[in-house]
């Protein structure tokens, strides 16, 4: 077992644990913290995949900006403590739906692993994950999704501005 793999295992364990912690945490704030931990772990995974740019961006954007905003909102609303009893009446369909989705996801994952296991390289190859290459890829191969996301985000932003504006 190579040191890289050992590291991967540990980090992966941390990432999974953090994700579970986020899910089961009763406190919104703790959930956010678990999420941040998860992001950090994922960033390390990127590093292991020789994609330092992505790792840094992951930390910078998700952990450094988005989660700070989350925390800000949580603290501002004082919503860090979740209600002890879920409001059963409000979202009665939520739990079954979640179970169904989870089952679908697991099935999907198992299917992918079972069918395309060989397609995934055992060890990350030296691919160019530098900013230049990512930029080119985004604007060439994935132009449409990129633009769609841009429009969606723009719409969300305009929506937020409109919603918060005083009448």
């Amino acid at each position, binding site marked *: 077992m190579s040191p890289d793999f050992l590291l991967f295992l540990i980090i992966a364990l941390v990432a999974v644990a953090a994700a579970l912690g986020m899910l089961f945490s009763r406190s919104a*704030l703790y959930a956010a*913290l678990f999420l*941040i931990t998860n992001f950090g772990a994922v960033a390390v995974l990127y590093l292991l995949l020789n994609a*330092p*740019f992505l790792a*840094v*961006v992951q*930390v*910078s954007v998700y*952990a*450094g*900006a988005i989660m*700070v*905003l989350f*925390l*800000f909102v949580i*603290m*501002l609303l004082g919503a*860090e403590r979740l209600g002890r009893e879920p409001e059963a009446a409000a979202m009665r369909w939520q739990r079954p739906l979640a179970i169904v989705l989870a089952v679908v996801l697991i099935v999907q994952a198992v299917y992918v692993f079972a069918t395309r296991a060989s397609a995934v390289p055992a060890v990350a190859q030296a691919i160019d994950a*530098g*900013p230049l290459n990512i930029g080119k890829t985004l604007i060439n191969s994935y132009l449409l999704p990129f633009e769609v996301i841009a429009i969606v985000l723009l719409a969300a932003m305009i929506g937020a501005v409109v919603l918060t504006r005083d009448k």
Partner: protein
Amino acid sequence: MNPILEALVKSVGILVVALAGFAYMTWVERKFISRLQARIGPNRAGPFGLLQPVADGIKLIFKESITPANADVLVYFLAPVVAVIPALVLFAVIPFGSDPAFQLASNINVGALYVMAVLGVGIYGMILAGWSSNNKYALLGGLRASAQVISYELGLGLAVLSVIMMASSASLNDIVAYQQPGNILGWLIFRQPVAAVIFAITALAELARAPFDLVEAEQELTAGFMTEYGGMKFALFYMSEYVKMIGMSALFVTFFLGGWSGPFVNEAPVLSLVYFAIKVLACLLVMVWVRATLPRFRYDKLMGFGWKVLLPVGLVNVVVTALLIVAGVPGYK
């Protein structure tokens, strides 16, 4: 040398320098600001008050450790640690001198971005401290900190982006190297003055130093997020602030003041350390000077300034820089 051992030695070295720097930075600040205010400043502990930081440290160590009632104990204790680690980690990528030996992680190609990432994470200490203390002042301090840092990080990013564009690299070593055409005009401060100014301002905001110290505005918030902290926990916050100050100064030097560059560096690489140190110290003194001069911003003005002035100006600067580079204007290629 074993690379791990080497990294360890360097880390310890940086740690020692950073902590000593922190300690004496407090002395420098007090001394300098008192002179700016026609006072003498600390002069009782040791000659020129040089032992004052030691005395302060001893005092803080012996203070009773207090946990507020109904605090979230785990987070409350973690927050100072979370605050101080990013400050120290910052130094990993900064080239202190011409020799690779003077750098912990030499030549990481995303050095500038790493810096941005670390700075972005550094704010968690404040936020968590503010929240966990179960104190309204602390919470407000934490809120202010999060809002302020997010707002100003954008400006900071744009300023760094300009620099990266100029150097065509996110590696700090490359940036320093880029600024060495042999004369002082190679310093980016002359070619990117707007970026330099934006960086300087946003750096102060990132550090939550005067005039942007709303996070701990004592007239309004007692001590902001640190209200409930005392003793060594308080010292850790203090440390993170001053270490970050040094780190920020180092970054400014690296980005805009040519880094460690200076005459006879090639002949005597050690000189590069000295130059770097002098430049950093100069930056630090300017920070103190600013603190002595400017009053604190009002909170809404602070936010407005960040979003309505620095961000547009930064964006324009990026666009102009890009245009200049594309146009191949001399000095921008």
